């Protein structure tokens, strides 16, 4: 089990990574702004003085438009990077679980696309306010989404759902795993056992993180359908 000092070190190390990442993303934004204005000026000058029958006119116009689109695409990516970096600022914040899941799914989208898996969300109709470690939450939810993506066949749909169940808040990830529900349940139970506290498998580390967050993992096998991994979190997670 991690000592308080080890836990504090971990928090500081992650905070350092987040701070530097946020700073770098800010620098990238500045260079994007320069590119944006420079290509915008190229477009302005082309439209102002260039005769439209100049052979290169339409090709240059297309190219400036294409650069502007890529600038905007980059700006969106950097926004996500910055949000991710700021998740490492503090180990306890007030957050909305719906927003955390939304952010996690955006981060996981490229992984899903590469595996040709459709990633969908079904978010609770009202905000799910809780207090906890935003980075750890992202990590653990991402971990189970990634597992579901990697276990699913092409064109399968992985759904991430949020819900409230009594005093607990739930994130349910559909799992098309080749490992059946009983086996996942056994793995999870083993991961939560005292012997497995120092386990190094991905699932063991995720289970340990869930435990540190005061949460639990359950698995349901759908009748004739995919299995569901249900992550339950308390409204106020333990702090170090």
């Amino acid at each position: 089990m991690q000592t308080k000092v080890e836990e504090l070190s971990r928090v500081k190390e992650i905070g350092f990574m987040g701070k530097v990442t946020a700073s770098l993303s800010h620098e990238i934004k500045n260079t994007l702004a320069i590119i944006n204005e420079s290509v915008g000026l190229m477009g302005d000058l082309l439209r102002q003085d260039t005769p439209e029958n100049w052979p290169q006119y339409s090709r240059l116009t297309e190219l400036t438009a294409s650069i502007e689109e890529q600038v905007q695409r980059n700006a969106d990516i950097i926004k996500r990077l910055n949000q991710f970096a700021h998740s490492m600022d503090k180990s306890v914040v007030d957050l909305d679980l719906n927003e955390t899941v939304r952010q996690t799914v955006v981060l996981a989208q490229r992984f899903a696309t590469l595996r040709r898996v459709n990633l969908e969300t079904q978010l609770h109709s009202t905000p799910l306010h809780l207090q906890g470690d935003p980075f750890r939450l992202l990590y653990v939810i991402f971990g189970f989404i990634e597992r579901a993506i990697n276990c699913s066949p092409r064109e399968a749909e992985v759904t991430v759902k949020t819900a409230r169940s009594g005093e607990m808040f739930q994130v349910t990830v559909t799992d098309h795993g080749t490992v059946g529900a009983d086996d996942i349940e056994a793995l999870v139970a083993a991961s939560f056992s005292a012997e497995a506290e120092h386990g190094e498998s991905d699932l063991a580390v995720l289970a340990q993180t869930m435990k540190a967050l005061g949460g639990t993992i359950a698995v349901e096998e759908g009748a004739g359908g995919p299995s569901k991994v249900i992550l339950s979190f308390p409204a106020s997670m333990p702090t170090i």
Partner: protein
Amino acid sequence: MAEYRVLLVDDEEEFVSALSERLMLRGIEVDSALNGEEALARMEEKEFEVVILDVMMPGLSGLEVLRQIKSTHPNTQVILLTGHGATREGMEGMRLGAFDYLIKPVDIEEMLEKMKEAAKTAHTD
């Protein structure tokens, strides 16, 4: 004659140069400064209806420049340039009296619209 005068303040020289030229092509009278001290000195020499002000600059920060502008030139409207929306700096800037903020990279049409609105308010003070 331009409807209003704009001071553009950002430490990135190429950004200032390209954006200034784009605004001038659209008939806007633009002056520029590469840091907070230079910006405040320019404002002593000339009246500006609108200041476009980068939040994160070395030396005198954008927020400190904003504070000083609102103290010495209360009729001038300030539009902040920020890398990310709803940041601590952006929100603090609005609290200090900024007219609005824009997120880099900026959309020039959006910037023109906000400047026009800001200039209207500056004239009526």
